C-alpha cells in the first residue's frame, strides 16, 4: 500500500489526507519571519520612548501579536482542526483566569478594610 518511489507533491498531500496536513509553503514562513523581526525592532524602539502607562501596554500588545503569528503559522494552528484551536484557546483562557482572578484579589485589597 505504501509506495516507495519519489512521491510528488500531490501524493504527499493525499497520503496525509486532505483535511489535516496542509503543507505551509516556505514563502509564508519567510514573511512571518520578517514580520517577527520587524515587531521585535518595534517593541525595542517603543520601550525607549517615554509613554508612561502605555509602555507596558504596547510591549504586551506587540508580544501578543508576535506570539499569535508564531502560533498560527509556525505551529500550523491556522491549518489544523478546530480541536487544536479550541485547546489553544482553553489554555490561554485558563492562564488568564489564574492571573486575572489572583490579581483581582490583590487589586481590590485597597478598597475594603484590611
Amino acid at each position, binding site marked *: 500500500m505504501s509506495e516507495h518511489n519519489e512521491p510528488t507533491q500531490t501524493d504527499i498531500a493525499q497520503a496525509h489526507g486532505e483535511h489535516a496536513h496542509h503543507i505551509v509553503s516556505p514563502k509564508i514562513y519567510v514573511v512571518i519571519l520578517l514580520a517577527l523581526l520587524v515587531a521585535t525592532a518595534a517593541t525595542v524602539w517603543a520601550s525607549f520612548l517615554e509613554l508612561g502607562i502605555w509602555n507596558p501596554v504596547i510591549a504586551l500588545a506587540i508580544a501578543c501579536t508576535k506570539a499569535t503569528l508564531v502560533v498560527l503559522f509556525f505551529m500550523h494552528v491556522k491549518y489544523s482542526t478546530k*480541536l487544536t484551536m479550541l485547546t489553544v484557546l*482553553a*489554555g490561554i483562557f*485558563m492562564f488568564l*483566569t*489564574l492571573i486575572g*482572578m*489572583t490579581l*483581582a*484579589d490583590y487589586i*481590590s*485589597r*485597597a*478598597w*475594603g*478594610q*484590611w
Partner: protein
Amino acid sequence: MSESTIVKLPDQSTARIPKMNYLSKENGILSWLLTGDHKRIAILYLISLSFFFFIGGALAGLIRLELLTPQADLMATDTYNKVFTMHGLIMVFFFLVPSVPATLGNFLIPMMIGAKDLALPKINLLSWYLYIAGGSLMLYTMATGGVDTGWTFTTPLSTHYVNTNVLTTGLAAFIAGFSSIFTGLNFIVTIHKMRAPGMTWFKLPLFVWAHYAASILMVLATPVVAIAIVLVALERTIGIGVFDPTKGGDPILFQHLFWFYSHPAVYIMILPGMGVISEVISTFSRKRVFGYTAVAFSSVAIAVFGFFVWAHHMFIMGISNYSVLVFSLLTMLVAVPSAIKVFNWTFTMYKGSITFETPMIYAFGFLGLFTIGGMTGVFLGTSGTDIHLTETYFIVAHFHFVMVGGMLMAFLSGIHFWWPKMTGRMYPEKISQLAAVVTFIGFNFTFFPQFILGTLGMPRRYASYPPEFQILNVFSTAGATILGVGYLLPVLYLVWSLKYGKIAGNNPWQATGLEWQTQSPPLTENFVKMPIMDHDVYDYEWLEAQQEKEKEVASAR
C-alpha cells in the same frame, strides 16, 4: 438463581477462565514492568495504590488513637504533627488523586470506547513509574524523620520555621503531579481520537464523561502546584524572597498558587467516583441514567467551574472582602451540578428493576454520604458561616465525608462491579455486602461526631484539646476501628476470590457497556474485531435482543 439478583453466571462445572487473556498472554516480571497494555498498568496501579492506602489508613488509626485523650500522651506533639502530615500527603497525592482514574479508568476507558489501548501506552507506563518514584520518595521521607508542615505546605512555616525534609516531600509531590498530568493527558487524547466507529460523544458512557472532565482538571491545574513547590523549594534553599515577608514577598501568593491546584484536585478526586456511580446505579436499576445529558454536562460544568472557586479556602486569610464575594458566589454555582447529579441518580431508580448487590449498596452509601458532604461544603462556601467553621473539625468532617464517604465508597463500588471483568472471577456476595454495611456504619460513627466538634470550635491538627471535646473524639475513634475492619475485609475476600471465586463469564451483571460484551479477563487487544457502536448507551432493549440472538444460536447448534 434466586429471583432477587441479576447475576447470571455460566455453569460453574464447565466454565473455565479463557485460555488467552491479557494476564496469560506473557508472564515473567519484565512482561509486567515493561508492559504497554493499559489493563496491566491498571493492575500495577491497583496493587501500589492499595499499599499506599493501608499506610495512610494506619496513620489515620494513629491519629484517632492519639485523640482518644485530651492530653497528647500517645506520642510527642511533633511526632503527631508528622503523622497527620504524612496521612494527608499519602492519602491526597498517592491514593485519592490517582485511585479511580489510574485503576478503573486505565482499565476500562479504552474498552468502553472500543479502542485497543490508550493513545500513548508508553506515557501511561511512564506515569506509573513516576507514581512509584514519588511514592518511594515519600516513604524515604517517612523513614528519615518525616515532615511536619501539614499537607498544605503553608509558607512561611514550610520555608523558614521547620527543619524536617520539606524538600524531599516537595520533590515527591512534584513527581506524583506529573504522573497525574500524563494520565489525564492520555485520557483526553484517547477519548477524543480513538473512539470506535459510531461512538459519538452522546453514546459515551458517563464513566468516560466523568474521566474526561477530571482529566481536563489534571492537565490544567497540576502544573500550577508544580511551580508552587519549585518556588517553595527555592525559597527554602536560596531564599529568593518570593514568599518571604521580610524580603518583600507575600505568603498569600503561595496560598493562591497552592489552592489554584488543590481545589480542582478535589474535583479530580470526586469526578471519577461519580462516573463509577452512574454506571453502577444504571446497571443495578436496569435503566438508562435519568437525564443522561444533564449528568454528562454537569460533570464538565464541575470541571470548568472548579477553576474559579479556589479562594474559598482563604476567606479569613486577609484576601480582600470583595474577592471573598466573588469566590463565595462562584462556590455556590459549582455546588449546583453536584446536586443535579445526586437527584438524577436517585431518579434513575424510578420505575427500575432494582437489585442490591454490593456495588449497589456502596452506591447507596455514596449517595447518602456525598449529599451530606456536598451540603456541608455549602456551609463552608458561604462566607458568613465560614468564619466560624473554617480550620476546625467541621472542615475535617466535610472533606472526609466527600472523599472517604464519596470517593472511597465509589472506588470500592467500582472495584466490586468490575472485579469479574478484571479477574474473570466473582467476589463472594454475602461477606462483601456485610463489609459494605460495616464500612457505612463505621464511617458515620467516625466522622459525624466531628461535625459537632467542628461547630464547638475544636481546631484542626490539635494533638491535645480541651476536655469537653473528649466524648465526641472517643466516639470518633470507636467508629474508626469499625471503619478499619470495613476496609480490611475487601482485601481478604477479593484476594481469596482470585483463586476460589466463581467463574464470572463475559457479562455476569448483564450490563450494557462495551467492556461487558467481550470475554473476561479480556484479551490484550480488548476486542477480537473492532466493535461498531450501533446501539445507544445504556440500551437494555438492545441487550435483551442480543441475549435472544445468543439463545437462538446456542439452541440451533
